[in-house]
Structures are given as structure tokens and as C-alpha cells.
């Protein structure tokens, strides 16, 4: 098991995803400022349900991933059922249903990047971050590396996305230097 990275709200909550025996340490998200922000989002749509994707983004920004408890809270706030929220969360690949590393690395390996050697970039990331396996978090909790289907920057092969940053034209040789930028 990887060491839960610090930062977002509770380490206990992250750990609870791995160990159901731990007590539920969930703290509500949509209170105070975030609730105000959500209410503002709600004004943009004619239905409450439409705020689901933005609300889930808020959850992910705050906690780094979308836990089942968070899904239940979103469901309550938006007057839908948790099962419905889960159905939506599992549809969209960008919502993490498990805790991920401090930095989430997505390497595009779809055809246009693939012909330009994207697989070497993935291998380099897996080796240099030490996570070893796609989807796994490195032992130091720093990186999770995944292959992603098309980042929409095909002309700049290979594009990668670390957290919110898109880095274009990455080659396997540049990987150690890029990793060093993300402590």
C-alpha cells in the first residue's frame, strides 16, 4: 500500500479507501465557500442535476479523488440518488474513484502519438517515477501514471498531462527532467 500523500483533506479518508475497517472520517465538502460556489454554478443551469459534473470537479479539486462518501454528499446536495451519481462518475474517465499520487501523469498513447513513440514515454515514466505499473501509485506517493486516450494535442507528440499542466512534445529522454519539476 502506498503512503497517502499529504495535502487534501484527510489522510484517514484516503486510507479508508484501502482499509474499510478504519472509521469513516468523512467531512462534508459543500459547506461555506464551496457551497456558495456550487449555488453560483446552479444558477447557470435550469436543473439541479446539470450541476453534477461541475460539483464532481469541485470534489476532485478539494480531495484529489471522488470517494463514495463524496458521491453520496453530491447526491444529497443535488437531489439525486448516490447510485445515479456513481453511474455518472464511472462513465467519465477523469474522475478518480481511488486515491491517486500527488501528481497524476497522463500520457497520450492513441494512434497519432503512438506512431511517434508514445509508448517509450510511458515506459520512461513508469521507470523513472518508480510506479512500475500503469495506474499504480509510486511507493513515495508522488506519481500515478496512466495511459490516456487522446489529449487532443496530436500535433505535439507526445503530449502529457501532469495534474493541470499539458506538456507538449515530450520524448523519453526528457522524462527525468520533467519528473524533477514535480516534487
Amino acid at each position, binding site marked *: 500500500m502506498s503512503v497517502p500523500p499529504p495535502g487534501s483533506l484527510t489522510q484517514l479518508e484516503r486510507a479508508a479507501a484501502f482499509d474499510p475497517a478504519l472509521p469513516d472520517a468523512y467531512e462534508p465538502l459543500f459547506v461555506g465557500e464551496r457551497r456558495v460556489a456550487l449555488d453560483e454554478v446552479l444558477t447557470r443551469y435550469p436543473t439541479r442535476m446539470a450541476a453534477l459534473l461541475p460539483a464532481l470537479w469541485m470534489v476532485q479539486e478539494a480531495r484529489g479523488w471522488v470517494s*463514495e462518501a463524496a458521491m453520496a454528499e453530491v447526491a444529497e446536495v443535488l437531489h*439525486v440518488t*448516490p*447510485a445515479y451519481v*456513481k*453511474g455518472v462518475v*464511472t462513465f467519465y474517465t477523469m474522475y478518480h474513484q481511488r486515491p491517486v499520487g500527488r501528481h497524476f501523469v497522463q500520457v497520450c498513447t492513441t494512434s497519432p502519438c503512438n506512431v511517434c513513440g508514445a509508448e517509450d514515454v510511458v515506459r520512461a515514466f513508469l521507470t523513472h517515477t518508480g510506479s512500475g505499473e500503469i495506474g499504480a501509485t509510486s511507493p513515495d506517493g508522488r506519481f500515478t501514471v496512466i495511459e490516456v486516450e487522446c489529449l487532443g494535442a496530436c500535433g505535439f507528440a507526445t503530449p502529457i498531462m501532469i495534474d493541470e499542466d499539458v506538456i507538449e512534445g515530450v520524448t523519453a529522454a526528457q522524462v527525468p527532467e520533467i519528473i524533477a519539476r514535480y516534487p
Partner: protein
Amino acid sequence: MITLTIEGRQVSVPEGTSILEAGKAAGILIPHYCYHPGLPVAGVCRMCLVEVEKSPKLAPACATAAADGQVVHVHSESALEARQGVLELLLINHPLDCPVCDQSGECELQDYTYAEGRRSTRYREPKRVNPVEDFGGDVVYVPNRCILCTRCVRFMETVAEDPVLNVSDRGDHALIGKFENQDLTHPWAGNVVELCPVGALLSKDFLNKARSWDMDRAASVCPGCSQGCNIVIETRDNVVARLRPRPNADVNQYFMCDEGRLNYRWLNRRDRVAEPLVRRGDALIPVDWEIAIDAAARTLTGRRVTAIVSPGLSNEVLYLLRRVLERCGAESEGVFAVRQGPEAPLPGVPDLAVRADRAPNVQGAELMGFRRTDAPLDAVRSGDVLLLADADLSAAGAAVVSGALARAADIIVIGTTVPAWAAGAGAALPLANMAEDEGTFTNLRGRVQRYRQAKSPPALARPGWSVLADLLVALGDPIVVWTPAEAFSALAQAHPAFAGMTYEGLGATGTVVADAREPRAVTAGIGA
């Protein structure tokens, strides 16, 4: 109305009807999985693809409106090929475990594969495997057999309005999912088992109990509450194995509640009274029917009788009971109590709910002039003959019961069981229960519906209408009733609310009584 041709047959349907429904009207079944008449159209299984002349692509029959002059081919080469393709794809990840699957024999995947599918698979890759999941309530989910038709999801979302099921994930990993601790506990959730066209959602109660081909089926009416949902009773070796809903657009559409579905074990009770009994000294001993009927008639003749009847008896039995009371002494009366339970509506269907009155023939009992009361035993006056017609009085306290017994001079039991406290009865006449008999119930909206015999009664027990006809004859009534149809026509002739009805004319879906709102009492002087 528009007219179209399906497989060479002309059919006229109202505008807006789908090709699939038009096909049904023409007597042509267009194979389908995700379509269900009680649910919104999803159009996802792509099984109902048909060829429509002058249309470039195959059309999904469930989602395509029939148009005037359309010519539809269901079994053309291209349509068959498309459906064969769908079947092959549905089966690539299917475990093909029909021998252990409860749905086997009534599985639409099995049926259509036999009818139209490929003889062998070309799939050589490992199959997708997921563990069986308990969905709570009465439902268990076997994901490997799931074809993702989403009928269950749509039912919970739009009919039960409790969307606890979802489609999780996407691509070929997709599954029906639910949220932890949010189970299928909705009172109508069990319908998803019925809706599932394959063996993915199974009833825990029915699991591994019987094969579909082992069972005998009888059209019936649910005895659980006054809603009167139409059901099918399925029996295996004379034992009721399960109840399933039977469509009736006016009552329950396609659904029945879980309580009704699972409440069938009493139909299989083994502690039944199986022979006519009369008192000899301290004991009730088995005798011939004639002796028991005579004993009962002697006890009743000229005496003041209080009958406590069950609102679960058929209209005919209640009518004959009323006639028995009229043969007895003055001031004889009949009362009944109705077990109560919480009401639970199915939001997506108008006027469908588990009703608070947990008995099938409350309306019928009132129409026959029986008085509804919460304390039926209080009606027993000192010196009365207590006629107990299959009534369940277990809810009354021991003191109330013993008080009533002390007041009653004699007790006659007509029923499926002899309760322990009625052991002092002078005679007990064994009846067949509703699954062993046929007859009619009147539901809370006054709809008179037939139920048919599903199994045979134990030993010498006889249908109520037959026993009471004999009793009436013994009491001097000139009635002639040899069949349940004759019993019903006797009722129809005597009771204005049933006027003009015939037993056969009730059909599969029933007829509403005249002036359904106001229950009216039977008038005296019926002995025609």
C-alpha cells in the same frame, strides 16, 4: 389510424404506435430485449432491427414510429443477419451456464438464440468474469449473464421512482451497479426480476427451487391486498413455487409488489384440516361429508348466528354464506375484519399500490352485506352460534377470544384450518384455499376478477361454493349449484351489482360492478 404491412399482413394502428407494437397487433413478434411496454423506450439492445422498405438502414422497431403505407420485413435476410450478429455479440461474454441458471426455459436470450442465433461461436478470447452481487431485497445480480438491456434501471428510475440502480462504467466493462448500502428495498423492486429478460437478476426466494418447465401455471388474482393484481400461480408437484404478475392494463399493468410476490407460503400450509370433523364427546373426529353437513345444519337451523367471515373468500362463497345466514334465525349477522398494513404506491402507474386492506375481497364482503369491524369477536352475542368462515382472528387478544367463546353457545368452523381456540367446535368443514379453488374477487375499485385453480386441495377438503351449496340444501334451500359458474350465476341473478355478469364473460381482466363506488347490501328473499 394508419395502415402498414408487416410480414405481408396489413394492420391498422393508432398514429404514434411503434413498429414493434404494430407487429404485436398483427400477431408478429419482433424479437427484442430492452423494449418493454411498461417502460420508456431505450433502443439499446438493437435486437428489434427490422427492414423497412425504402429506408436505407435497418430500423429499431421499438423506437421507430409506424407510418402509413410502410412495408416492414421482420424476417428478411438483412434483418435476420443483424439479429444473428446481435445474438453472437451478446453471447461472447455470456457464461452459457443454462444448466444452472434459473431463467433457463423462460430466457429470451435462450429462445432467440435457438430461433435465430448462430450454431457456434467464433469467440476465442477469455470471457469477462465478475462476481455475483447481492442487490438486497429479494434480488441477486449475476453480472456475467447480464445483457445490459437496462430494463431494471429504467424500472427503478421511471416506474418505482427510486433510482438505486445504475449502469456503471462503460464499454464492455459496463455493469448494472448500485451504491453501497442502498439496496433494492423498494416495495416494488422485485419486478426487476420479472423484467430481466435473461438470468442476470434472480429472485433469492425462488433461487434453485424449480425449473420453469417443471411448473404448472394458473391465472389468478393476488390475495395479498384489495388492489387485486393479476397474477400467475406457478406450482411444482402441487406446491406453489412462486407468484408472478400477469398483465392487466386496468389494474396492475405488468407489475406486482414484493409483499404479494413473496406471500404464498400459506397456500402450502401443511396444518390444514383435511377431513370433515364433528364433535363426539371431547374430541373432533373425522366423519363423512354428509354427517358433518347434517350436524352443521342441525346446529344452525333456527338459531341466531354470528358469522365471522374472511375477506379472502370468493364472492360466490360469501354470497352463499349470506344465504345461509338468511336461513338461520332472526338477527343473524355476518362481520369481518381486515388485516391492515402500510400502503405503498408504485408511483409510475396510476392507481396502483399495496393497499392498507390486506385482503383480496373486502369490497365483495361489503357488497354481500357483511359488516366490517375491527373487533369481530365483539359481535358475538350471548347464546349465539358462532360460524367461523376461515377468519383469521390471531390479532385479537386471548381475553377477547375466550370472552367470545364463553358467550357463544355453539361453534361451527368452515375453513382451511381449525384454530386451536376453536377446538371446541361442534363441526368443522374443510375448505380448499384460494389456490385450490376457483372463483372471483371484487377489488377495491369494484372490479370482479376470476382466479383459477392452481393445485389440488388436501384429502377431503372441498371448494367453499360446493360445501355451502350442500349446507344450504341441508337447510332446506332449493338451490342447485354444481359448478363454480353456477354459483356465480346464482350470485349474478340475485345481486343487482353483479347483474348481467357471466362467469365466462369476466374474461382474463374482469368486469367492474354496477355503481362501483357504493357497496350495497344484498337484499333478502333470494331463495328463487
